[in-house]
């Protein structure tokens, strides 16, 4: 009796061990597959784009087909300008809305705003682009950097709103009570205690949002439009890396294809740097936190 029980136990144990190994192997493979696209893309970009990526690429303007060299300085500067406009709109609105949502939690308006913000977050970016065109391009009769920046800013708002709300909710209620008990007015408590404590998290969220919009193409197609020439004025079409990559990639010329690869490499490096910065800020936050 005891012996039969022991054999049954041994075989069951063996079965469970095999199951364990199989499942472990499957999740291991899944984890590898999850990183594979990025590794593949980076590898391919480096192979195709690195040779075109000379210092000239950053300092020179695009050249006509047939001429060697040339770069994307206008598109790089254009992308930075577009990001700056997007931040000027997306950050204050997003942080303010996030603060409101976190402090008002269950109010009817808060619930509505939270829901709409989620809807906006899921909106295809091309739709945002069309709306920006309808209201910011058509009435003025010209494509402009401003229209593109506003479209990107509108994309940023829900991202920043939600991360701000999450980060503010992480601030312990005891800090809020401490400030109120010291005779702090509500608004001052929010600004100087709550926002400041949550700041590293909010900065991380903002950087992630910037990384997200830096590579957006669709909202720029009929707003910023792209520009083969040097332009930094806000009321004219402006070049942007994603647009330039798009234009070059669908062209029939090999030189331009090479330029597109290099542009893609620059874009991905920018996003990578922003992501690393975000991680760094996050680490600083959780490194200094105590119990």
């Amino acid at each position, binding site marked *: 009796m005891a012996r039969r029980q022991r054999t049954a136990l041994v075989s069951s144990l063996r079965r469970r061990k095999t199951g364990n190994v199989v499942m472990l192997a499957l999740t291991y493979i899944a984890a590898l597959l999850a990183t594979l696209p990025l590794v593949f893309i980076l590898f391919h970009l480096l192979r195709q784009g690195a040779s075109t990526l000379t210092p000239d690429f950053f300092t020179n303007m695009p050249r006509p087909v047939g001429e060697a060299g040339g770069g994307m300085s206008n598109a790089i500067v254009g992308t930075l300008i577009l990001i700056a406009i997007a931040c000027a709109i997306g950050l204050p609105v997003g942080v303010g809305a996030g603060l409101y949502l976190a402090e008002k939690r269950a109010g009817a308006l808060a619930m509505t705003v939270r829901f709409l913000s989620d809807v906006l977050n899921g909106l295809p970016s091309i739709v945002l682009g069309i709306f920006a065109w309808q209201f910011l391009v058509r009435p003025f009769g010209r494509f402009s950097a401003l229209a593109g920046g506003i479209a990107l800013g509108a994309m940023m708002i829900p991202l920043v709103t939600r991360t701000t709300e999450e980060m503010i909710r992480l601030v312990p209620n005891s800090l809020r*009570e401490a400030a109120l*008990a010291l005779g702090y007015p509500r608004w001052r408590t929010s600004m100087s205690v709550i926002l400041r404590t949550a700041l590293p998290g909010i900065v991380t969220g903002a950087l992630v949002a910037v990384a997200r919009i830096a590579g957006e193409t669709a909202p720029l197609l009929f707003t910023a439009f792209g520009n083969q020439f040097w332009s930094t004025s806000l009321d004219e079409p402006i070049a942007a890396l994603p647009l330039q990559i798009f234009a070059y990639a669908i062209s029939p010329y090999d030189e331009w294809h090479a330029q597109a690869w290099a542009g893609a490499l620059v874009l991905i490096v920018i996003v990578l740097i922003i992501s690393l910065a975000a991680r760094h800020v996050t680490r600083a936050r959780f490194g200094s936190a105590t119990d």
Partner: protein
Amino acid sequence: MNVAAPVTPTVEARNFSFWYGKKQALYDITLTMPPRSITALIGPSGCGKSTFLRSINRMNDTIPGARHEGSILLRERDVYARDMDVVHLRHRVGMVFQRWNPFPKSIYDNVAYGPRINSGLRGRELDEVVERSLRRAALWEEVKDRLRQSALSLSGGQQQRLCIARALANQPEVLLLDEPASALDPGSTQKIEQLLSELKSELAIVIVTHNLQQAGRVSDYTAFFYLGRLVECDDTARLFTTPREQQTEAYITGRFG
């Protein structure tokens, strides 16, 4: 049930009742807290003593659905009166919480926080207030050489005394403490009790505690709460030796709670 005090009480509750939504937490509390004395609020968990404490500086205002009847007077003025500014009230009535909660800033900034904003103090004057407050909280000698360090680098007991210093910097007339030593080691607890005995020469202190020995050691008056009602309030020595109510006796002799 009133304590016979020859002077006007600093804090006085008159028929004070309190509700969290539909649930009544306090029933008709009438209690006086004299100046320059320590009043301890004791009773089993959920008896309403913390709710009562938080009603004095209106911290319960932030809870949705909270409602009260009756009044709580601070120097004969109702803290719930329409013309009472809650921000000003909280300058006059300082509060220290069970779980120490210094701001994630420097030791100096934690104490300077109140006076800087409330009285607009700067420079030397502010330095003086910070030093005086830290001295009153018996913390100055331990931190005077590292005022710019993070408050979170202090030990638990030091952080709690920092919270007391922070409250004192506002020059309050009343200091409310919600189980200030329940999470501290005996040494830190003793320091805080000693500190309270010294502070009571300057202000009225109300302390909620689960620790009956602590109530016996530090307080002049003790109020026993049970199920949202004030059962008995008396001179501490008398309440612990010859309680009038049977419930009080059962509680202090450890038969329940």
